[in-house]
């Protein structure tokens, strides 16, 4: 019987695809591999302990992939791990040089931007919902005539408030990630100058 573990809501934990990939790669380096990646696994993903493997993981968002999308990745030697809605997960074993799916800065930045755009849209929707509810609540506060209406309002406020908070914290995580990377980049530059 192989050792197993479960991770919850994994795609929602990472604001940037690079961070999600790193997380998968780290687990693979410890011998943990996802058993199945399908739509439902965005909520609950099971991992199985196996061989320690040097994998490069790629998480790619494709809302409307064209016919040759899968074929191109497979031609380049990527193994299709699965897809969760529009999130495609790929991996490739490697020895020394880490393979990249987005080989230049421009296309890598474009890929990340797609994630952030989606995240911003969702955040805006929830924030607007929260604000609209709060305003309505304020306006109708004195005119609510049953406890039921109260409860409905409060539940709505809590839900949209919590979602707004969650989504905005993802966006903050993204900003932090970018800053961290800038710092390490400039540090490396300084070091190379010293040499």
């Amino acid at each position: 019987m192989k050792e197993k573990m479960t991770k919850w809501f994994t795609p929602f934990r990472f604001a940037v695809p690079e961070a999600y990939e790193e997380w998968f790669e780290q687990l693979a380096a410890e011998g943990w591999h996802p058993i199945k990646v399908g739509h439902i696994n965005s909520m609950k993903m099971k991992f199985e302990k196996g061989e320690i493997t040097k994998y490069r993981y790629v998480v790619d968002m494709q809302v409307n992939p064209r016919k040759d999308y899968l074929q191109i990745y497979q031609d380049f030697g990527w193994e299709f791990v699965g897809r969760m809605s529009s999130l495609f997960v790929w991996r490739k074993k490697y020895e020394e040089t880490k393979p990249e799916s987005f080989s230049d800065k421009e296309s890598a930045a474009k890929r990340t931007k797609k994630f952030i755009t989606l995240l911003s849209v969702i955040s805006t929707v929830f924030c607007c919902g929260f604000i609209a509810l709060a305003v309505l609540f304020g306006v109708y506060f004195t005119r609510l005539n049953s406890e039921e209406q109260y409860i409905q309002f409060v539940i709505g406020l809590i839900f949209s408030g919590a979602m707004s908070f969650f989504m905005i914290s993802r966006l903050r995580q993204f900003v932090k990630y970018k800053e961290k990377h800038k710092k390490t980049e400039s540090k490396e530059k300084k070091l190379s100058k010293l040499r």
Partner: protein
Amino acid sequence: MAMNYEKIRKRFLPMTETMFYILLSIRQERHGYGIMKHVKELTGGRIELGAGTVYQSLKKLEGDGLIMHTQEVEARKNYIITEIGEKILIEETARIKEIYNNLGSIL
């Protein structure tokens, strides 16, 4: 058409090295993986395009009419440059030549 071409010029010029080599390599019909191999050969192994980059670039180029797909062979789409794509490529080449001509004082 003329208006449309102006928009495309603004979107693509100047071009990234990646875009330039992809466009250049499909003056002859090729599929995604074939493009990567060809570009690698052209640059002596310096540029090794990734799958995501190739797919993303092809989608953008086709969306703006610089290239089109031809036939499908075993789920692989082949692509070829269009007239508009060729025009853009020539303009970009002229720009790069200009840079090249201005390098005289350096080397």
